[in-house]
Each structure stands twice: as structure tokens, then as C-alpha cells.
């Protein structure tokens, strides 16, 4: 026998369909990773070397940044994206934003590696 509950459950199944993440959410994250890692690599050469007395100390963070398609790099992206709005607000221009983003990438990569 058909019941109202059965009907409404059928309707609920149709109404509350799973929602695919917007097209490009995952790919955007991966694209951002590639851009950020490239920026981070350049940036690390200029300021991380000055900051660390022994260059061997920055091999691990750089390795963490340049490896792609791993959980670690996905997390670096996610963490960096989480602070991107704030960096955009604080940046004095595109170059400053790039520098801030690169520093964030390096910092998050180190946090992931040290975890």
C-alpha cells in the first residue's frame, strides 16, 4: 500500500540530491597549487636562504611544496586558500600579494612536513 511517508520520502530523495562541488573547485585548487608552488620555489630561493644559516634546512619544505597530487600538497593549498581573502585585503599590490602568498605556502608546507 502506498503511504504518504513513502511518497514524501521519494520526493525527498529527488529534492535532496547529492550536489557535486562546482565545476572547477578541485581543479582550481590543483591549478592554484601549481602556481603557488612555482611562486614559492622562487621566493624560497630569495628569502628562505637568507633566513636559514644551513641550506640543508630548507630542503624539506621545498620538497613538500614541489610534490604534486599528494595529500600534503592538497593541504598546503587548502590552508593557503583559507587565508587568501585576508592577504588580498592586506596586500599593497599584486607583487606584495604574490610575496605574501609565497610566504604562506612556504609556512604551510613546513607545518605539514613537521607534523
Amino acid at each position, binding site marked *: 500500500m502506498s503511504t504518504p511517508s513513502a511518497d514524501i520520502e521519494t*520526493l525527498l530523495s529527488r*529534492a535532496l*540530491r*547529492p550536489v557535486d562541488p562546482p565545476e572547477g573547485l578541485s581543479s582550481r585548487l590543483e591549478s592554484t597549487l601549481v602556481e603557488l608552488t612555482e611562486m614559492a620555489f622562487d621566493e624560497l630561493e630569495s628569502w628562505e636562504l637568507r633566513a636559514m644559516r644551513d641550506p640543508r634546512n630548507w630542503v624539506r619544505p621545498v620538497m613538500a611544496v614541489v610534490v604534486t597530487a599528494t595529500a600534503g600538497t592538497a*593541504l598546503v593549498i587548502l590552508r593557503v586558500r583559507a587565508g587568501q581573502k585576508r592577504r588580498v585585503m592586506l596586500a599593497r599590490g599584486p607583487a606584495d600579494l604574490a610575496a605574501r602568498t609565497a610566504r604562506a605556502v612556504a609556512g604551510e608546507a613546513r607545518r605539514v612536513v613537521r607534523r
Partner: protein
Amino acid sequence: MAATARSKAELDSEFAELYRSHLRDVYSYAYYRVGNHHDAEDLTEQTFLQAYRHFERAQAESDGRPLRPWLIRIAHNLAANLYRDRSRRPQTSIDDTSGLSAVHTTEDLVEGRDELARILAGVKELPNDRREALIMRFALGMDNREIARALGKTDGATKVLLHRAIRQLEGIVGDEHSKR
């Protein structure tokens, strides 16, 4: 013998698998919870960030049980914080039929747009815990036990919650229909 410490690479690999397996679940929950894609994306990202921070402990405490309820519970708590901090309701209601086009096929929309919109509008009127239970059941396909873990309730209480949610929704939709 003491348990061998899990390697970070192993944990990251398992977290990546969790991320791939449940991105859609978390996003679906977030979308129906907050009602718009922008906030749903933010909520999804924050959920996985927080999950990563506590992943090792969650795995240890899960005793082999699936981690989906734990992920959804994180999203649930973050969504609650979002509303509390911003003191706001969803910016776009989930019964906004313009949003349906992103979720439903053209065929659905042609055949039952009004009906689906009425159901979604009714879901929106439910108390939070009932609405969330329905989202978990119907959008994510979670069983009673999973929903219970996500909401921090017993299996029995969850069964009652779902039953009452459906009954209340029937009443809301029925009232709406009789007004027409």
C-alpha cells in the same frame, strides 16, 4: 609490543583517500546547510582543514569505523559557528528554485519543479536537527547509525528524529497544498 607510530606519508595517503571519497558528501551537506555555493565551498575547505589537523586522533579513536560521520560532524559544527558568528540565516534559501538548476536535471525541473520546490521549502521550515537529519539521510544516504554519530545522538533517538522530521514535513507540505 608498543604500536608502531604511523608514518606521516601513510597518514597523508589515507587522508587523501578520505578527501577524495567524501568531498562530494561534505559539499552536499554544506550546500544544503548554508544554501549557496560560495559559503558551501568555504565550509567544505574549512571542514577538511580541521579534519586534517585531527585526522590521526580520529583514526585512532574510530576503531575502524567509517569516518564520514566524523567529517559531517565537523561541517555541522563549523556551519553552526558560521551562523553564530555572522548572526545570519542562509543568504540564499534552499527553496530558491534558481538554485535548483545546479542540482537537478532539466527533466526533473520540467516534471516536478513546483513539487521539489515545495519539499525544499518545507525542509527549510524544519527545526535544525530535523532538517540536518533529512539532509544526511537523503542527500548523503547515511544510515541511522551514521547520522547518530554525526549528530551525537543515540541510534534510537535518531530514528525518532527522522520519523518526526518526515511527519512534520508531511504536515507542512500538506498544509501548503490545501491552501492552494
